[in-house]
């Protein structure tokens, strides 16, 4: 999408510091705000989609997060962390509120914005039976993720789907790395249990289960 800015407006350097962009944005520079939005919107949207399972909800959440940045930019304190972490925190709160309102909003047939399936290329490479099997499996995994308790789900989403390191996830969720480790461990175990994989695992002989 073309921004359509006036010729006299300042140019944005791609590596311009975020605090400078934020200052300019707070003073009414629309380009600076748009740059901030474009930098931070994709991961936040993905996080929201993966947490809620609904692109409509994710859209609303992302809009809420940036609306807060428009209306109350002073809520962000640079001394307390990066803007990205701050926005993640705000998005996380919005997601939790959304999940409280609609705790079982699980969509197995997630469609893209234009209404098409998310991965149409799979149609071309597989037989219908294999495609149906994979599609079912994918649906089960997605449902299992969405059924995880929120605190485990967000850790699984960040570390497994978003492929963040433990440190990055801890930074984004504003909690210690140890908490991330333990939540991830529990999240993985719950996922395996939900997908009934553990049934295929032979009974342990050497140690008791703790």
């Amino acid at each position, binding site marked *: 999408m073309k921004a359509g800015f006036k010729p006299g407006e300042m140019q944005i350097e791609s590596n311009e510091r975020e605090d400078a962009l934020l200052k300019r944005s707070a003073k009414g520079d*629309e380009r600076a705000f748009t740059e901030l*939005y474009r930098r931070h919107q994709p991961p936040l*949207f993905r996080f929201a989609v993966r947490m809620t399972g609904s692109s409509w909800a994710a859209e609303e959440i992302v809009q809420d997060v940036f609306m807060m940045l428009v209306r109350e930019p002073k809520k962000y304190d640079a001394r307390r962390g990066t803007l990205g972490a701050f926005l993640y925190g705000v998005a996380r709160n919005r997601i939790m509120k959304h999940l409280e309102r609609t705790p079982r909003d699980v969509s197995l047939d997630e469609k893209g914005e234009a209404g098409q399936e998310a991965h149409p290329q799979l149609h071309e490479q597989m037989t219908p039976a294999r495609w149906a099997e994979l599609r079912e499996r994918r649906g089960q995994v997605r449902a299992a993720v969405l059924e995880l308790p929120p605190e485990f789900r967000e850790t699984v989403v960040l570390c497994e*789907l978003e492929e963040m390191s433990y440190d990055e996830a801890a930074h984004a969720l504003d909690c210690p790395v140890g908490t991330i480790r333990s939540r991830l461990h529990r999240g*993985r175990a719950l996922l*395996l249990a939900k997908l009934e*994989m553990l049934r295929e*695992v*032979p009974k342990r002989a050497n140690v008791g289960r703790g």
Partner: protein
Amino acid sequence: MNCEEFAIAGLDLGSAGGDDLLKKAAREHLRECHHCAALHENWLALREDLRVLGAETAEAQAPSRVELRLRQEFRSKHKTIKTQRTAVVFAWSLGAAAALFCAFTWANWRVHKDESLAKTTTKVVPTAASLENPSQGPQGGTPVGSELGEVLVASNASGDFTLLPGSMPPAPEDATVVRVQMQRAALGALGLTVNEEHAGDWIQVDLLVGDDGLPQAVRLPQSGREEESVR
């Protein structure tokens, strides 16, 4: 490494980074424990599923309508702020201008008031001659009549005032000389003797008015006195 430790740390075997010693111990445990080997295999399969799931939404972005709405909100917010600032500046300017105008008007009014007071009134110092002889009547007959109310400029050059009956000599700084035109008969109301033949004549009289606003003494100006003596 036992099964519990493997369940916590061993599932990270495939991921980059981490403690090499721990990974080595996990691999050794995998070779020995079929349960953990099966768990690990299941986890790898699930991890692959999760990666596929992640890849599905890897390029996901908020639709462009969100950006449009946000930019619209941004514009309207900052336009409102600018309007508010302009309104505040205008209001302060207007207030300051009004205050300046009021101050200027008041100062002007004060100056004009002082000037007019200086012109219309003068402090008089009654002379000892006039004040020592309070019972002395007005020079040559006495007028009577109603005041016309016209205030003329009086002079305190001469000090021959006649104290009205019952009046005390006023302090010089409290007395004011006021020149009025009145009928001679009006002097009778002030307690002076009036020549009845000329009671209807209009004469000029200087009144020495005390700070209570009542006349304390009268004086006939020079011309009036000459005329009076003729009569």
